[in-house]
């Protein structure tokens, strides 16, 4: 194969324009100065429209009487690829299974949304929410109460028969 060396010539003094080029540059910057397109989003005041399929902070759905919908079947810790869900199931005196411990480590979570996909009773969800900064690391392990307190909209799952969400 051929290697080509291209020698770049500086423009000849006779053909260069310094002042005209500088002035056209000034005109360009002035145009931007008086009419800043302002592509920056003013984040805390202006919120981004999150996609309906945005997968963020988890949320546990609750029954009308305040109990979690979770039946402690154990599918979500099984399917979780990051192994971030800790579930200890229990059974009450009527024989209903409920989660004694349900913890999600938001640091380990990769927000794949498979827990929501696999849940047979639509209890655990990933949500359209991302502002979950905390001051300490241990605050990132969400327990059952904290998951039930979340009130952001939940993620719409991808439907294979309607891939574009129409």
């Amino acid at each position, binding site marked *: *194969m*051929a*290697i*080509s*060396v*291209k*020698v770049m*010539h*500086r423009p000849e*003094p*006779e053909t*260069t*324009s*310094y*002042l*005209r080029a*500088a002035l056209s*540059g*000034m005109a*360009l*910057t*002035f145009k*931007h*100065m*008086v009419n*800043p*397109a*302002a*592509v*920056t989003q*003013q984040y805390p005041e202006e919120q981004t429209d999150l996609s309906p399929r945005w997968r963020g902070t988890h949320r546990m759905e609750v029954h009308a009487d305040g109990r979690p919908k979770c039946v402690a079947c154990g599918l979500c810790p099984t399917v979780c690829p990051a192994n971030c869900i800790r579930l200890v199931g229990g059974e009450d005196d009527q024989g209903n299974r409920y989660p004694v411990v349900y913890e999600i480590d938001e640091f380990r979570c990769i927000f794949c949304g498979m827990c929501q996909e696999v849940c047979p009773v639509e209890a655990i969800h990933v949500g359209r929410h991302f502002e979950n900064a905390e001051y300490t690391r241990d605050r990132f392990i969400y327990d059952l109460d904290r998951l039930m307190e979340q009130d952001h909209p939940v993620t719409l799952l991808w439907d294979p028969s309607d891939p574009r969400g129409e």
Partner: protein
Amino acid sequence: MEFQPISGIWAIVAMSLKVTGMFTVLMLVVAYTTLAERRVSAWIQDRHGPNRVGPFGLLQPIADGLKSLLKEETVPATASRVFFVLAPMLVLAPALVTFAVIPFAAPLPTPAGVVDMIVADIPIGILYVLAFSSLAVYGVVLGGWASNNKYAFLGALRASAQMVSYEVALGLSLITVLMLAGNVTLTEIVWQQQQLGMWFAFPLSLAFILFVISAFAETNRLPFDMAEAESELITGYHTEYSAMKFSAFMIGEFGHMVTASALMATLFLGGWDLPGTWDNAFWYDGQLIKGFAADGTVVLASPALWKTLATFGGFAAKTGFFLLLFIWIRWTLPRFRYDQVMALGWKVMLPTALAYVMLIGGSILVLDEVGVPWGFSYGAALTAVSTVATVGFVFFLDRGRTITGAAAQYAQKVEVKTISQPASAGD
């Protein structure tokens, strides 16, 4: 109605008020110029700029100042301590002191007498400005040298060479103004512009251009910020400075910008003069006059509060225009190479300024010999001469023969070469 200059105890009161007021206003303008620089640069780059502290970010300079005060002051172990501390002061003081001789509004009538809107109307006006603006270079050099840092020292060397070089062109372009005004007092320069019926930017257009370019170089602003040159010298002479000492350098730089802007406004855009003769006022023979009647008798001026305020607004607008120009150019043009700066200074600015001094001197001589009265026709004739000179200068400069580096000027013409290699098995 007879107007007398203010005297006695009230003169001292008025002077104290003017000094305090002007120092405050100057510091505020400097502070808000730093904000304006950041906001305007942001707009030019399609950003927002600092808009979080206070409404529209208006409290940002105060936050910056507080932060500077609370930061740790560091002095390098090998630095020369005395000069290291002295340097920021030497930059800061001349920038603030220079403003004293610039008139900023029409005289203000008070019950005690007429107060001149200038801190010190000293008879050596321009010379005082030149003397003090040259002092600033000592601060830069001392700062760079005392830091005991190679980059700081290089920055200081560059800055001193550049400031000394452009001082020559600056002074020579000033000479035309002094020849035309016939005086070095800034109040009289404003007065002569009022009498001429046009601002000196027109009859002395080339001097105006040279002065603006030199002022950029003198204040170490882009495209002449050789002294800082972040990409080459870290930040040049203030590399080792931190906290309030660094802020002092910045205040000094912006103070110089404000002073240079006010000076350009005064010398070439009529200072506080607004179009029309209603605001003209000048102390002549102990009387505050507006001008001369056709038979040579004086016409008395009638100063008023609203005239003072309006002319102050005009002065602020002109100064603001130059400040905006400083910022606008900084965020448009890239930095010159060092040899280009020197080439522009010595090969273009100095000869042009010298030739222009000769041209204007000759023109003034001819006009005086012919007997053209000092007034609009006098200015128009000079404007015609200057326009020709300016067009020639711009045409010459635009071709870039002088600012193009030596390497490019004498570059050998090398043809595009294509080296062919036989395809090897590895390809």
